[in-house]
């Protein structure tokens, strides 16, 4: 929606994070280095326990790394920031607010007057195709619709970086495909850097400029795969299928 001269560059240097589990230290991220380009769509995949959600939460400022640094447009990250928005696996809507109220929530929290916030929210409610449901309450929505509201809420604050933590993981297969197309469209229209965690490889190939594969075993290295396919992408196309095979091989499944 806004001009092309936006930031949204992320640099990750020597990032490490471990959790203590039953007295043992469990390393989930080991000296990770990564540069995320402004406006790109980076999708993070990896086996469970590989630290993909932890990485996203560190980027969001919801967790702190043990060592290493994250910088956005050259500024070191400490905690949450206005240039980032997060879309969670669950819609996390406030049940007492209408769809419009929920979408305006982020702006209102950031100090935008209610009327102005709702005006801008209305645009994004329409963008995710819920204009007719602006006054509905979350309890009246289906899972897919609720997640659209969550997406609209994140877009309304016009972040430079959109962080998505398995946003479609809880949806049924049909809804999911529709929402993937929607995300691809939104990403291309909004000119936003998108970092998304998923364990759906097809979803990764459908959306990503680059796929980051996090290693599970100790000593393994993270790998980046460029997805060099024209958009909109066709799932049945030979090259798409070939990327899928390549990713499956990375997981030792093919």
């Amino acid at each position, binding site marked *: 929606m806004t001009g092309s001269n936006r930031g949204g560059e992320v640099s990750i240097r020597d990032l490490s994070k471990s959790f203590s589990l039953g007295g043992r230290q469990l390393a989930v991220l080991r000296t990770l280095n990564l540069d995320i380009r402004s406006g790109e769509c980076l999708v993070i995949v990896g086996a469970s326990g590989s630290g993909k959600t932890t990485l996203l939460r560190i980027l969001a400022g919801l967790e702190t790394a043990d060592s290493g640094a994250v910088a956005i447009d050259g500024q070191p990250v400490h905690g*949450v920031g206005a240039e980032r*928005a997060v879309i969670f696996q669950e819609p*996390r809507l406030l*049940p007492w607010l209408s769809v419009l109220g929920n979408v305006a929530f982020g702006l209102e929290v950031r100090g935008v007057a209610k009327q102005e916030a709702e005006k801008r929210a209305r645009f994004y409610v329409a963008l995710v195709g819920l204009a007719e449901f602006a006054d509905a309450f979350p309890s009246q929505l289906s899972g897919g619709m609720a997640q659209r509201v969550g997406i609209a809420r994140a877009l309304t604050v016009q972040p430079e970086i959109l962080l998505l933590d398995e946003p479609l993981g809880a949806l049924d297969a049909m809804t999911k495909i529709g929402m993937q197309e929607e995300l691809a469209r939104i990403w291309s229209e909004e000119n936003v850097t998108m970092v998304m965690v998923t364990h759906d490889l097809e979803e990764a190939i459908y959306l990503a400029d680059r796929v980051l594969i996090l290693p599970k075993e100790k000593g393994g290295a993270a790998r980046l795969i460029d997805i060099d396919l024209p958009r909109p992408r066709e799932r049945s196309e030979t090259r798409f299928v070939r990327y899928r095979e390549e990713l499956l091989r990375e997981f030792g499944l093919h």
Partner: protein
Amino acid sequence: MTLQHIDRPITIPASRSESGLGDDFLRLGGRAAVRFLSRYGVLVGFLALWQVASSAGWVNAAVLPPLDMIIAALWKGLAGGSLLGDIAISLQRAGIAFGAAVAVAIPLGLFMGQVRPVETALDPILQVFRQTSALALYPVFILLLGLGETSKIFVIFWATLFPLLLNTTSGVKEVDPKLLEMARVYGASRLTVFRRVVLPGAVPSIFVGLRLSATTALLLLIASEMIGANKGIGFQVMNAQYNFQIPLMFAAIVILAGLGLIANQALVALQRRLCRWSNPVN
């Protein structure tokens, strides 16, 4: 009785085309009657049984007087004004106590739910207080505060405090941490999180506490008025029994039941207004 009413809307549509509007009204009336009876049928049946059993002499009419006598006593007390003073003083006692409980319990509960160390420190003593029957403590309150209004109001206050306090606290504690995190991601300050997420999220639970407390307030009101009072509905129940004015005793009991129903309905209506988003309350 019920069957007749169910039959009516089924038989009437046959003649509908001929007579039109009047029948429509009848049909609507029939449907309303069915709805009324499915909800209040058992209650109506109970009252009818009471009336018949008492006036036919199946039970001792001196102990369970027929309903018309109770209603007459009620009418006399209300229209004649002799019970109005009792209602006023009872409402005053319960109202002050309930209001004080609301003023103390809701802020304290919100605070306790937010600040874990406070809750940890206060919880054991609150549990002990809560498990000690307020009625058992009433003699203590009388010793401390005398036999006047203060001890009566205080015992009601004491009993109504805990359901409200505990429900408010748990309402705050049970607000979904995922929603709190969501608000945090948008940069919400602690105060904003409290105002926009915690407080509205705790409202249904606070209402559970309010309704429990309102019921408790009336319960304790009667108990306190049965000891050392010379006015009030609870006093009238006791007094009428001593003087064997049994219809008057039941009239006072009916007033009590009515107050309880009104208080509950008022709170339900308020909750519906404030919580249009949640599932309807029963």
